[in-house]
Structure formats: structure tokens, C-alpha cells
């Protein structure tokens, strides 16, 4: 478990701007205000290689690079492989969850979700904040 503080940069990734706004606002309510956004996996990967982030919260269904592909790229990168990675997705089938787990996801949130779930999962991944 890697601790983060309220100033730790967090990258949120989703192709729906509404969802980015929801996550950003909920994170803000939890006290995290250093939040960057990306709308697809490849843009996210580029940002992750340019700046040290403490956490990634990513959707699954995106093009051209999906959240799962992003996760695999992160875990394959020696500089990024330990980065906490939470998947927030509408993909709730068991095989999806298993695939994400096998790829090294830190935690998994199914949409629609609420603020309490986000807080609980964040705590499970990065510890108390």
C-alpha cells in the first residue's frame, strides 16, 4: 500500500467528460485537488511518463487504448509498475474483473458508484488520508 497525501497528483481517465467531472468533484470533496485528466489510454500513458503521479483512476471502455491496455502498459513499465491503479467501469462481468485482476489492477469500482464506495476503495489502495 502506497500512502498519498492531498497534494499527490492523481490522473483520472475517462472518455466521458461528465464522468471525469463527477470523479474530479468527488475527489475534491475528499480533499484531493491536484487532479489531471485524460480521455483515452494512450494520452494517459503519455501523461504518466511525463509527470510522477501517485494514483490512476481509469475507465475501461475507451479508444484507441482501453483502460485494460493502459493498465498492462503501466505494469510493464519499470518506472510505473508500482503505481496504484483503480478501474472504474460499467464492465461488471466476472471475466472482466478477473482479467483486470490478472493484469494487476489495485481495485475495481463498478459504475454507477457513490462517494462512499470511492472513498472506501481509495483507502484500500492508498491507505488512510
Amino acid at each position: 500500500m502506497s500512502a498519498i497525501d492531498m497534494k499527490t497528483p492523481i490522473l483520472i481517465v475517462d472518455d466521458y467528460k461528465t464522468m471525469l467531472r463527477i470523479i474530479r468533484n468527488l475527489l475534491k470533496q475528499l480533499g484531493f485537488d491536484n487532479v489531471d485528466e485524460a480521455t483515452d489510454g494512450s494520452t494517459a500513458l503519455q501523461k504518466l511518463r511525463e509527470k510522477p503521479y501517485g494514483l490512476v483512476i481509469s475507465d475501461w471502455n475507451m479508444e484507441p487504448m482501453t483502460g485494460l491496455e493502459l493498465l498492462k502498459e503501466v505494469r510493464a513499465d519499470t518506472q510505473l509498475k508500482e503505481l496504484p491503479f483503480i478501474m472504474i467501469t460499467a464492465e461488471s462481468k466476472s471475466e472482466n474483473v478477473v482479467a483486470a485482476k490478472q493484469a494487476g489492477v489495485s481495485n475495481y469500482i463498478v459504475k454507477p458508484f457513490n462517494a462512499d464506495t470511492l472513498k472506501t476503495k481509495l483507502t484500500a489502495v492508498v491507505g488512510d488520508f
Partner: protein
Amino acid sequence: MSARFDERDTGKRVEAIAKGGDGVEPEQILEVVKSVMASIDGDLSTVNLKFYAEIESLAKFIENLKLELAAVRPDEINDEHLPAAADELEAIVGATEQATNTIFEAVEAIEELTAKMNKKVAPQVSDAVTRVYEACGFQDITGQRITKVVTALKHIETKVEALLEAFGEEIRQLPGHERPDNPEPPDGSEMHGPQLERDANNQDDIDAILASLD
């Protein structure tokens, strides 16, 4: 149909010819040949008749299928209905996104004001704001579901397109396919619901129309 082929009788005749040595009468050979030919002719005719009947039945089936397809008007489905349905669905995604953004702006403004509220009210307002944020997730879920439906519609469109390529011109020329030259004007009882933005009149347009009728 020719006489029935008697294999045993023909066999006896052939045997007799073989035993006859040099003394075989041409008439005997002719009878055997006639018998064999008659049998072949008879069998082929029966097969042919069955075959032709099957072909005829298949042709009728295809013709009926074409008529049924023409009645469904697949070209209209592809040219009008499916694209219209996809446009409507995409308009729903756009409209809900716009509405959600408006809600966000209003709620974010309320959240900013919590700093100025007293300590008893501020947390209650903040909780309410959180619930609104959570509820706005509907737009994301709705959008994903509608995208799936649009993908399914596009798949159907491809299949209908393949059907039209196979039968297209023939279907268009079949009876029952003609479009009315002068479709009945709306009598006011047909409601079409909200128009797509590109087709819709805004309030200024409506006012202009009303003014033009004064």
C-alpha cells in the same frame, strides 16, 4: 411414360443371344435395346419431373420471399428509419450531456457557497451536492447503453444493405413497393416529438413564422 423395365426378362433375352452364337437375329438385339432404352427413358422422366417440381416450388418460394421483402421495404429501412433512429439516439446522448453540464455548473456554484454557510447547514448542503454528483453518473451509463444500441443498429443496417445488394433492383420493381406520390398531409393528430437540433426551429424561427402569418 414408357413401359416398365423388366430386368429379369431382358436378362433372359441377353442370355439367349449369348447362347445363340453366330445365329443371333437382329430383331432379338433390337428388342433388348428397345427394352433398355425404354427403361432409361422412363427413369429419367420420373427424376426430371421431381426435379422440375422442386425447382418450381423453390422459384415460387423465392418469388413470395421477394414480395414479402418488398412489402417490408428494406431500402426505406436503411435509407430512412435506421439512420433516423441512430440520429435520435445520438441526440439523446447530446441532450443529456448538455443537461448534466448545466446541473454540474449549478451544483458546483452551490458547493462554492458552502464556505459562506454556517457550520450546521454547510455539511447538509455538501451531502446533497455529493448525491447530485453521484446521480449525474446516469449520463455516462445512458451514453454507453445508447452507444451499444447504435452499434446494433449499424450492424442491422449492414445486413439490410447486403440484402438490398442481393435483391435491390428486383425488390424496387415489385408491386406493392411504390411510394405514394402525394403522402397525406399531417392532420394534427400525429405528434413527432422533439426535432433534431439540425432540423428544429428555435423560438426565433417560430416567432418569425407566426409573424409571417399575421
